[in-house]
């Protein structure tokens, strides 16, 4: 226990103070100087280290394919992205799906729906569950990205990535969580089973929304670094670490409803430490990624 907390203290400390960060930042800067960015190396980097915040958006945009690997094309391609955004934005105005008072995230949703051919016939149609996921991710992204056009593209491509590349693995995550919880704390698992809470854990919040609306953005972006660069398994370890961190509280709750309700609204104070511990736990169980994407 002492070892554990010491290790966790250290990793949080390093990340905050940035001893390790200086070296990492330099090596990322070298990667970013290439005329043609090496996507695989950028993936490996963000799997291994938290992205320095000044480069995060750039790296995300490259990894999600919003801008191509060549530096020289970035301005041109971003211009196309901008035009595309405004083309659709204007069209939605014309058919009265949005107006000047429409909240930004809803504008993003309608643009995304139109782009994917899923715009409902009219505004009266209720939102689908996938729309709620989109909105949650958009709300979180809005806090991280200032420019609305960049923000739209990040949300849209991130959601598309979750629905294509990660689709199958995301469905397995509840099962995987149970396995690791059994290894880490079988007593807690028993308790959850006894309360019939295991099937009612907030899986949508954790694995579909990728913790958007659950963790504050400063912690969330470190989780998304890993997801965007190719690993959605990190989500399991964040969930696991949340369960372990609030173990006492959860054991004291005896109904599935109360447990779920608590987990949907966890305290926001120590989430940075939770994410650091989750990353450590992920390394312990899955190893340090070398070249895998």
């Amino acid at each position, binding site marked *: 226990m002492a070892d554990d907390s010491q290790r966790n203290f250290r990793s949080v400390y390093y990340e905050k103070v940035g001893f390790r960060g200086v070296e990492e930042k330099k090596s990322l800067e070298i990667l970013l100087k290439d005329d043609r960015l090496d996507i695989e190396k950028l993936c490996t980097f963000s799997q291994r280290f938290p992205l320095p915040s000044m480069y995060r958006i750039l790296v995300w945009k490259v990894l999600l394919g919003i801008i*191509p690997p060549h530096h020289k094309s970035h301005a041109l391609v971003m211009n196309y992205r901008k035009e595309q955004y405004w*083309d659709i934005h204007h069209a939605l105005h014309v058919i009265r799906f949005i107006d000047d008072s429409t909240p930004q995230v809803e504008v993003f949703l309608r643009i995304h729906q139109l782009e994917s051919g899923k715009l409902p016939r009219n505004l009266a149609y209720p939102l689908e569950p996938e729309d709620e996921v989109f909105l949650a991710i958009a709300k979180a992204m809005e806090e991280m990205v200032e420019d609305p056009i960049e923000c739209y593209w990040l949300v849209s491509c991130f959601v598309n990535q979750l629905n294509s590349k990660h689709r199958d693995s995301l469905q397995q995550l509840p099962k995987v969580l149970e396995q690791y919880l059994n290894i880490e704390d079988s007593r807690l698992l028993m308790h959850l089973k006894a309360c019939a809470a295991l099937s009612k854990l907030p899986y949508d919040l954790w694995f579909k929304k990728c913790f958007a609306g659950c963790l504050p953005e400063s912690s969330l972006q470190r989780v998304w670094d890993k997801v965007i660069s190719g690993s959605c398994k990190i989500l399991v370890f964040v969930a696991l670490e949340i369960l372990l961190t609030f173990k006492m509280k959860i054991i004291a709750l005896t109904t599935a409803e109360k447990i779920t309700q608590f987990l949907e609204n966890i305290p926001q104070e120590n989430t940075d430490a939770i994410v650091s511990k989750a990353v450590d736990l992920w390394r312990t169980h899955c190893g340090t990624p070398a070249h895998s994407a």
Partner: protein
Amino acid sequence: YLEDVKIKARGQLQAVESRYRAQKRITQAFELEILNLFGRLENSPLKKLEDEKTEAAE
């Protein structure tokens, strides 16, 4: 180097194609909206009255 040029061209082409596809989606959405609006105009029992009004105004 040749490979480089190809990758660069593909990166740009993808963005232009995506912008084109979006424009196509817009056309489809507009088409639906036009049909919808025509339907609203024509299924109205008040259409005749309205037609007369329009004609008179022209």
